[in-house]
């Protein structure tokens, strides 16, 4: 691990200012991803601004009838909240499908959205990676790509976003709230929060330098049956090969977001509109522009069959 200086921020704007003013600075929340990447020098911050004392650890009702989840609410506390379990079951289901009990106790809501990819070439500092070292090339393209993305990719990067929670947040139209070094706040719809790689896979979100996530808000509950189906290589404590987050209404309409297939949670309005016609109609639209590799082409069929199972489950529930 490279040496770094450390401070605990006392207020959000001061934290944003400390990171904005120092190109080597990074925010530190739970640390479960950042500290890990620092050990292998994929991340090499020279200064850490610890935000744990900022008080963003509550879940509060919004005037619109939704919930405002503080950025620092742990994955465990999020999944266990009575209101989340009752009205946003998809969030609890996705969150407890991810990581381990120990990690969920420390990992935060904002940190979960900001997780870096688990692409093995991103982790191997001996190999080129456009996300880790812009312009160096992509080792995954032409490499072993079974776990990697099939859609939303570019010639520069085929990494997936690893989060389960983010897939549920995307299906429920969550909004990411931030503050910057000037004290200005903004609300970013989660659909616009994660970026596709294009020519700049190292830029993963809409956040500006020093912009700090303060909360993630959920709109008022939409009812329906909530299902998060995660397919993985072992039955617990593994990243998704593919995952399907669905909220299905009694009339057969609903929402679908897919994980493990793209650089961001993958959801399309025109695909959802085809839900009454069944899984194939949905996935044909979701993957109309897919560019799978020989190793991960199976994910297209796997998502269709997983969604078919989910739809069957909700019809017979």
């Amino acid at each position, binding site marked *: 691990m490279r040496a770094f*200086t450390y401070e605990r921020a006392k207020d959000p704007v001061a934290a944003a200012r400390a990171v904005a003013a120092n190109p080597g600075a990074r925010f530190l929340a739970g640390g479960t991803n950042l500290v890990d990447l620092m*050990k292998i020098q994929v991340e090499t911050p020279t200064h850490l601004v610890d935000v744990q004392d900022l008080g963003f650890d509550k879940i509060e009702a919004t005037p619109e009838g939704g919930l405002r989840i503080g950025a620092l609410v742990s994955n465990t506390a999020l999944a*266990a909240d009575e209101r989340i379990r009752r009205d946003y079951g998809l969030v609890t289901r996705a969150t407890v499908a991810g990581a381990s*009990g120990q990690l969920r106790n420390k990992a935060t809501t904002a940190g979960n959205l900001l997780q870096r990819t688990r692409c093995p070439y991103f982790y191997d500092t001996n190999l080129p990676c456009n996300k880790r070292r812009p312009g160096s090339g992509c080792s995954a393209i032409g490499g072993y790509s079974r776990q990697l993305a099939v859609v939303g990719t570019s010639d520069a990067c085929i990494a997936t976003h690893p989060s389960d929670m983010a897939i549920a947040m995307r299906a429920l139209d969550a909004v990411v709230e931030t503050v910057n070094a000037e004290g200005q706040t903004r609300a970013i719809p989660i659909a616009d929060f994660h970026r596709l790689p294009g020519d700049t896979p190292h830029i993963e979100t809409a956040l500006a330098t020093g912009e700090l996530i303060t909360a993630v808000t959920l709109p008022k509950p939409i009812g329906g049956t909530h299902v998060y189906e995660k397919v993985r290589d072992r039955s617990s*404590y593994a990243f998704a090969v593919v995952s399907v987050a669905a909220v299905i209404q009694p009339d057969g309409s609903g929402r679908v977001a897919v994980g493990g297939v793209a650089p961001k949670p993958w959801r399309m309005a025109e695909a959802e509109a085809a839900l009454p016609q069944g899984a194939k109609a949905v996935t044909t639209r979701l993957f109309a522009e897919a560019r799978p590799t020989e190793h991960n082409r199976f994910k297209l069929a796997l998502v269709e069959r997983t969604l078919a199972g989910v739809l069957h489950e909700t019809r017979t529930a």
Partner: protein
Amino acid sequence: MTPNPETPSPWAMSRRGVMASSAATAAVASTPIAAAAPRTDAAKGSVPTASTKLTVNGKQHSLTLDTRTTLLDTLREHLHLTGTKKGCDHGQCGACTVIVNGERINSCLSLAVQHDGDEVTTIEGLGMPDHLHPMQAAFVKHDGFQCGYCTPGQICSAVSVLEEIKRGIPSHVQGDVAAQPAISDAEIRERMSGNICRCGAYANILEAINEVAGRSGDKA
């Protein structure tokens, strides 16, 4: 025996002594140059440090540490509480699991400076050979290990798992996540999945946890 970091147990001292002396012997026998090489870290004098106060197993410690020091390395190398083990050092194996402010975490993925003011319980704090925690006793009774390396992490996790079920924390294997979880073999296995045992003692670990939970396990 009460753990006292300032005076490590005779066992720890003797093991460290053996390792140090054998290393010195090897250095003299093969490459005297290596043995004479200075430690450059301290000479530079520019490594950022930070002060951290920790309460570990009820005892307060004030430490000034290189900011890079993980909670795991603080426990093992600075407080000489070597019960907590370093397995993968990347949060994948669970050998480093300790209980911080009542919740289990991977101590390898936390910097000590993040825990200023926190209360840490390690395997030594749960119990020692002359007064075992019920979970430690159950692991011994049910042979919940072979090599024992993952065991301190397994036991810290197991104690927390029963507490988490009691607190109603939901899990992936629940049919209805809005309901309170009920203890079962499937619940225990799912909640213990962050602790890997390469000897494969899982069946006996499950029996040990079931015994402490006051149940006999599900019928196969």
